[in-house]
């Protein structure tokens, strides 16, 4: 019965392989870029960046998990997360500053320096 139940579960779901994670991360990465490019609101752009970083993280974790490697991957992921936080903090501060100056957070309108 139990076995049956298990048998019911599709094989790829039972034990997902490295590719799956890579694909996920790739998709995340692309989505991140998409967000960065398309969204006009700075906050959204920042979120996109977070996506990109996390895509990287997934890679690291996945690689560590699926290979006979040390824990470096996890380590790196931690660092990245921390840095992402730091970056976000700075970025938000700057956005705040921008909002005071331009009273907008629309990236397009912040383009006085050009050519």
């Amino acid at each position, binding site marked *: 019965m139990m076995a049956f139940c298990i048998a019911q579960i599709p094989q790829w779901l039972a034990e997902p392989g490295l590719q799956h994670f890579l694909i996920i*991360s790739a998709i995340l990465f692309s989505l991140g870029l998409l967000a960065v490019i398309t969204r006009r609101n700075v906050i959204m752009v920042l979120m996109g960046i977070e996506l*990109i970083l996390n895509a990287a993280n997934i890679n690291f974790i996945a690689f560590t998990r699926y290979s006979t490697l040390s824990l470096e991957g996890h380590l790196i992921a931690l660092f990245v997360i921390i840095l992402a936080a730091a970056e976000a903090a700075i970025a938000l501060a700057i956005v705040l500053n921008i909002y005071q100056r331009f009273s907008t957070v629309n990236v397009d309108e912040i383009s006085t320096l050009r050519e």
Partner: protein
Amino acid sequence: MAEHILESIQLFLPEIALTVTLCVAIIADLILKERNHNVAYVVIAGLVVTTIFVFRQVGFNESIFSDMVAVDPFAIFFKVVLLLSGFFIVFFSIKCRELDANKKRIGEYYMLITAMMLGMFIMAGATNLLLMYLALELTSVASYILAGYTKRARDSAEASLKYVLYGAISSGMLIYGVSILYGITGATDVYGINAALQTGDFSPLALLTAGILIIAGFGYKVTVAPFHFWSPDVYEGAPITITAFLAVASKAAGFAMMIRFFKVSFIDAELLTAAGVWDIIAGFQWNIILAVMAVLTMTLGNLVAIWQNNIKRLLAYSSIAHAGYILMGLVVLTDQGIASIMLYFVMYLFMNFGAFYIAMLISNKLNTEDIEDYKGLGYRAPLVCVAMAVFLISLTGIPPTAGFIAKFYLFAAVISAGWYGLVLIAAINTVVSLFYYVRIFRNMFLVEPQGDTTPVTFSFSSKLLVFALLIPTLLFGIYFKHIVDFAQSSVKMFGF
């Protein structure tokens, strides 16, 4: 393990000194009542100490913290360059009127500079991709803030925003690329990567993806096309001191990191010859990509620079062009090329700082950054303008100035490696660059002063600083034996 760490710390003293300086600066900023450039002197003191430590490292060729950081002649050379620029920048900042608007936070300014220095020091030495990434971020984060640090609020606020967004994304790409590379090789330190790649069982496609993403990440730091877009805007918006710092120091650090990464991790140990001509592992011809980028960079930089009227922006583009020249040195895959890059940075430091510094002095006095306002300045401030002319000539690369020697060695390296096409393009670019450099001193000397013709005078210390930059620029033009020796002997990296 423990003693290894202890030994490592012995060799990590310069960075530690910088860290300490940073903390001291913060504290000093807190306790010092009156808000002025006092912190600067703390920082200078810190830099002096660091210098001492750096010079005590000369001759070492070690890898510390279990292949995290290398202390080798290569790193030391760049640390010296960084220290030099650090000193100059601090002096500039003391002179810079632009920063006075918010004297209140001047302390932060200096400590951020120290932070940048720290980051760049680590960049110069890092042999581990993670550490490289961290150092890069440290430098960037500090510079994000510095870029926004000035009275001309709108511009610099915008600059910092663009910078942070662009920077974050680029570093994101970098780390993503790193993750893939990690997946391929299972290592994050360059030696491990190299060892893994030697075996040759990896999918070139993945390597290519990773490589290009990493190039994008580094390319952003060293402002080579097509990853340079942030720089003109940021350079224009940021305070001139920071612009100079970014244009020289962070570029140098970025190149140091880039060179080390590419050389060490992709070098093919079998093909390494004593003649210093090394070849790279089959499967990823990154040097071709870099060659294309070099051509793009120098051409674009020069062509666009012609149209700039803002001196800072013009120098920004010119520095992009120079990045293009410098990149050639890495493309040719010879120690000679790398030596010429290092030489170039020394020369470039003096002449470019010189140009920026005088631009700053002028904007201090005349409160303008528009080249059209330089008309007839040669008759109002002869000394400074002559110096400016010399710096620009040097940037163009006409003897007998340092710039010529730098270009000379670079071209020499490229020719001896047989990249004649590349050097021809570079030569043509040099001619193009003449247009806009000439335009500046043409405005200074060939045009009569318009309107105000009162002489412009500068304080003694300012002049002193000018000479501090002018003399090397001329001296290295006619006597450059030792500097070349130094560069050539410093090509040695740990491991290779």
